[in-house]
């Protein structure tokens, strides 16, 4: 499905581009407020209007994209960096106590209500982007651990692995040299999907005030700020919401497209 990839990649690139551009340029400085100019509708001066502090919403969206992407990428990074090694280890020591421990640990994490745990984490360490990353990242670990273990197991049965074992390679080397390259595609596809879930999770956490703190812009907090303004200035709630939807949609289309393109046979676990 190249159409999925095309639409998905375009949307994703647009937001990545906006986020990258925000490092060197935003239409306005969002740190200085212009309260007399608050809640302007979109027009030629402010393409997407202004918020309750008179800040330019387009600039906020650009900076918010940066926050969303950074949080989601790092959360997925935590999931991959911890989850994949655990999964490979469990696969290499299949049936051992270690395998059982890792898999039961995964089940345990899955058993915790994720939003509640995220709230608890921020209650302990205080709300911040970093703690949002940790809270989202923790729940990515079992996803990647389970997936990589499941993908690695059949590979261990293949002949070339047997050959490598006969050649005396340690299971650590086999995991890194032979198993890992064979599951990379799968991880990329799942990573894209977890990325989009991470964007949604970041938005939800920021919406309840537990994500990045002001003055860092964040889509979820823009929505929280706009929630009482929906009837007088609908654009303040619609625009950040649309940004989230488009970004997530783009990533999902990209992920689905990539899956079909890379290998139609692989199955992705989606929650």
């Amino acid at each position: 499905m190249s159409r999925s990839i095309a639409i998905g990649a375009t949307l994703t690139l647009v937001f990545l581009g906006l986020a990258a551009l925000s490092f060197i340029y935003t239409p306005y400085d969002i740190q200085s407020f212009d309260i007399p100019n608050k809640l302007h509708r979109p027009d030629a001066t402010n393409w997407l209007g202004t918020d309750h502090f008179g800040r330019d919403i387009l600039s906020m969206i650009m900076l918010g994209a940066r926050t969303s992407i950074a949080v989601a990428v790092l959360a997925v990074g935590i999931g991959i960096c911890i989850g994949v090694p655990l999964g490979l280890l469990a696969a290499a020591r299949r049936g051992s106590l270690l395998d059982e421990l890792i898999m039961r640990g995964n089940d345990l994490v899955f058993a915790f209500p994720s939003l509640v745990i995220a709230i608890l984490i921020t209650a302990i360490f205080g709300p911040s982007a970093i703690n949002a990353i940790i809270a989202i990242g923790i729940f990515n670990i079992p996803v990647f651990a389970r997936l990589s273990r499941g993908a690695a197991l059949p590979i261990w049965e293949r002949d070339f692995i047997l050959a490598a074992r006969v050649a005396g390679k340690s299971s650590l080397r086999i995991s890194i040299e032979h198993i890992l390259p064979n599951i990379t595609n799968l991880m990329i596809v799942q990573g894209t999907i977890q990325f989009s879930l991470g964007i949604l999770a970041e938005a939800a956490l920021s919406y309840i005030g537990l994500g990045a703190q002001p003055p860092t812009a964040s889509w979820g907090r823009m929505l929280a700020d706009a929630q009482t303004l929906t009837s007088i200035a609908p654009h303040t709630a619609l625009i950040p919401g649309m940004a989230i939807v488009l970004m997530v949609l783009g990533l999902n289309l990209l992920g689905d497209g990539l899956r079909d393109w890379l290998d139609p046979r692989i199955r992705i676990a989606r929650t």
Partner: protein
Amino acid sequence: MIRYIASRLLSLTLSLIAASIVIFAVIEVIPGDPAAFMLGVNARPDTLLALRDQMGLNDPLPLRYFAWVTGMLTGDFGISWTYKTPVAELVNDRIWVSLPLAIYALFLSTIIAFPAGIIAASRRGGMGDVSIMGATQLGVAIPNFWFAMILVLIFAIKLRWFSAGGFPGWDTPLLAIKSLTLPAIALALPQAAILARVMRSSLLDNLGEDYIRTARAKGLTRRQALWRHAVRNALIPVLTIIGLQFSFLLAGGIIIEQIFFLPGLGRLIFQSISARDLIVVESVVMLLVFVVIVVNFAVDLAYAVVDPRLRSRT
């Protein structure tokens, strides 16, 4: 089989013990003294000490963990510090909002997802399939709290068809169901999108199986084959997803419960965390974890009964 059940029971017990230790430890390190919060800024030190004594906060840690766990085993979840009522009573009140809401949302998502998934699968690649799949992509991408905001704006404020929130209680069942409708729709949308996609792909997998080919060779039309054989077989993965979604919905409605100010379990946890009513937090979180672990255990057992191959776990 008995050995299998025994080993699963052992791991269930160990999981529960591990979970209880994790929860207790997390709750212990949360900053913010519950007693200081309850008494506010004009509290005197002697008053604080008196209250901390009353709340049992001055006891040593292991003693408090032990008291909590043994209490739960005997069905005593403790007394809420802020509400001064037994936690079990609080949970009992709230569960009658959260549970019906979860069931309602699941019901809505199922009646949307099943037909959508079946239509999409039976017209694979056609207009219906493409538009349904596009809609599900959108459904997965919409944050449910944003969707809820929009629902309130349209149906409560502008059209005034539904009340904006709150829960009248089950004395008036119709009003109760009505007040759960908007929240259930907000919760159901993304779930329906996911479910429709699972339904479709599961059906497509089954349509490719040999027995469908056999059935079609025997003269069934594609549609007959789909309805008589594929749908039934495709239900297994779908039911698994429904099971997962149910436990998610039970606790996952925090934000939705907040937006519609429903007195449910999620909001109870949220309020208790900010009021540092830690005894409520730890007991309710433990209860939710318990439900999920037990449901997983039951699902594993059910699978093992159906499919003996699973007894030697891969």
